[in-house]
């Protein structure tokens, strides 16, 4: 809240929530803001949602995510950002991001997608899950009237990217699936302007909207939160099966995919789980799918657990490498060698990283300069 006030005092209209990184604050203040003047708005949008059906006896059924909320008049779905008004289902957050920032693409993290470039990152309020460890709960678990929202229609986002020479737009921080229509429209306009779009998601989405969305996306990073259904039930308040199906679908369609697995001490950090995860990825997505094991920090409703020990992350790394996964990274461990990309063929250091910074990138035309092995990704 203090930061928001600070930004307002500076005359900056761009809302940067407490969840967003401060690294590029000067960029936001000096760059984005100069490009266009924004206004905060208290109004909610009333744009008809795209995936829902009207029920025979009144009410609507949302068909966007596997939750399939049945929503009666004046009620909202689980995400808190879609409302039934007279049996027409509306998205209330179209064009109303509550978090806007310019981040390095490595922060998403996407390590095999234009390394060293920036992404115009945005989010609205709302989420279709309720992860007890959520780092961005102060936007994801709130309703849009509880956040400070900007009035930023899709074309303005693209205009900002062009003005700042930002090559990619990232839909991130909260859960972009809940602002599907807004994301889709931005991505469509962005593509026409040669700007790429990446989605950072939990992957809890129905296949039909996912397939449609993938026509507009260039990369997807999915938070695979665990490989056990009970974890999804108890910690995420979601389901694992639809997420796994979405991953297979993304791979099948051929959109670039990376995974993140947040390692939460005592909850999803056993050897058996890491092995099961590696085997599932190997079988269903291929050994060349990058996976990032990320360090947990106590947040939101999981304040009682400690930070993930480095040794646990290294154990996950070792097990996945042993199982044959080729690109295994460790996240939230700045300076660790496992932040960098190595050639699975000859072991050469290809991309040297420190935190979100690229110290060197030796990939030539998407291949290892030494052994010529093709490195998967978009470089």
């Amino acid at each position: 809240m203090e930061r928001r006030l600070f930004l307002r005092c500076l005359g900056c209209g761009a809302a940067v929530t407490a969840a967003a990184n401060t690294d590029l604050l000067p960029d936001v203040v000096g760059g984005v803001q100069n490009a266009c003047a924004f206004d905060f708005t208290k109004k909610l949008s009333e744009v008809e949602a795209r995936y829902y059906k009207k029920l025979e006896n009144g009410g609507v059924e949302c068909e966007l995510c596997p939750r399939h909320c049945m929503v009666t008049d004046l009620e909202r779905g689980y995400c808190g950002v879609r409302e039934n008004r007279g049996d027409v289902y509306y998205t209330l957050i179209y064009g109303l991001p509550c978090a806007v920032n310019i981040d390095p693409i490595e922060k998403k993290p996407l390590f095999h997608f234009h390394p060293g470039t920036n992404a115009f990152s945005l989010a609205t309020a709302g989420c279709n899950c309720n992860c007890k460890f959520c780092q961005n709960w102060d936007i994801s678990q709130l309703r849009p009237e509880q956040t400070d929202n900007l009035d930023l229609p899709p074309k303005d986002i693209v205009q900002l990217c062009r003005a700042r020479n930002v090559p990619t737009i990232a839909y991130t921080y909260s859960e972009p699936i809940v602002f599907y229509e807004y994301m889709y429209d931005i991505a469509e306009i962005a593509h026409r302007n040669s700007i790429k779009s990446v989605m950072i998601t939990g992957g809890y989405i129905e296949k039909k909207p996912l397939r449609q969305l993938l026509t507009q996306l260039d990369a997807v990073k999915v938070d695979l939160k665990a490989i056990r259904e009970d974890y999804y039930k108890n910690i995420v308040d979601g389901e694992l099966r639809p997420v796994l199906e979405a991953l297979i679908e993304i791979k099948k369609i051929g959109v670039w995919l990376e995974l993140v697995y947040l390692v939460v001490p005592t909850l999803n950090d056993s050897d058996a789980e890491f092995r099961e995860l590696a085997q599932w990825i190997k079988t269903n997505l291929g050994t060349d799918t990058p996976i990032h094991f990320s360090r947990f920090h106590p947040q939101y409703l999981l304040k009682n657990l400690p930070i993930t020990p480095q040794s646990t992350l290294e154990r996950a790394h070792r097990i996945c490498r042993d199982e044959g996964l080729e690109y295994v990274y460790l996240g939230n461990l700045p300076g660790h060698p496992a932040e960098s990309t190595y050639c699975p063929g000859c072991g050469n250091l290809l991309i040297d990283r420190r935190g979100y910074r690229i110290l060197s990138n030796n990939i030539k035309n998407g291949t290892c300069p030494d052994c010529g092995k093709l490195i998967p990704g978009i470089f």
Partner: protein
Amino acid sequence: METSCAHDEKQEKKIENSKKKNFLSIFYPQGRIRIFTYTVKQKSVDSFRGNRCIILSMSQVTIIRKTGASAEKGLSKDDYIVMLNAGLERHLKALSLGNRLRNLLPGRVIGMKTNCLAGKLNSTPIALTEAIGDLLVTEGIDENNLVIWERQSWELEKAGYKLNASSFGRRCFGTDSSIAGYSRDFYNSGKANSLITRIMTDIVDSNINLPVLKDHSIAGLSGGLKNMFGAINNPNKYHADNCNPYAAHVSSLEPIRSKNKLTIIDAVKVQYNMGPGYDSRYLDFYGGLIISSDPVAADRIGLEILEHIRGRHNQPTLEVAGRPVKYLKEAEEIGLGTADPKRIAVDVIQINSNGRVGKGEMF
């Protein structure tokens, strides 16, 4: 019945201490430093579960019915004053609290939680809040210390209320008002983890819950417990499985549990189907108020009335309709009140068109 919970004080203190921890967390990547000071307000629902002192007692519910009014017209403030006077006098006597409403509502500032989701046609009537306000003022409560509230200010406006967030007169505002907002800390009770409106945590000392008796397409019953979804930041997360156990656990969040002193369910017009929105096709006139200091018992009797009206209109029971009201049992389990009708004493008062008070019938 006044529910006093004899829980182990030592154990409760232990839980409180273990949960009330301040963390200083430094999140260091990229030179970013974030400092969190965090307090979890938690009282395990299990510490109340199966509390025998509640199980063994009878709960008191008073129904006051008024004849001579029509569903379309609704009741006037004067009607409500007559009903409340008769109902509260009987109810408070039964509670052995004397005949003064003030005894039931400790503290300086009294809140009135309305239910204004359905707009002007089926929300907590202004006449009812005005009538209660007048009674409280005659009981010695300062007019400036009455707060009529809802989740959002526009919901109040839509229902015809005039907003007043100043320091004078009966105040009326939503949690979204600049003087309210949500708590900084999460409150936890069983499966409910929520920020709570500051109206409940900081502003009011006691609260009167003023729901409208309605069918609810998911929960089955929209009554007092369900109305407290309007006091938290994330009600959308709590609609799975017919709102069970969420409706019970939300009402068990500590500031809500201890500050909700009285439930008065407006059952004058009852939306017996297609609720909680307004649908004139499924509206019937019952002409009653359901009063109880036991929120679960009030809901339980409200449910019986709702089911009876549904039956009269050839609607299936809520269970058959796929929305059984499961959360009342859970509410009883965690000691929030009485859900078993055998342990609820119902007193029905009838007020005829001449204002004469007599014994009435529930149906």
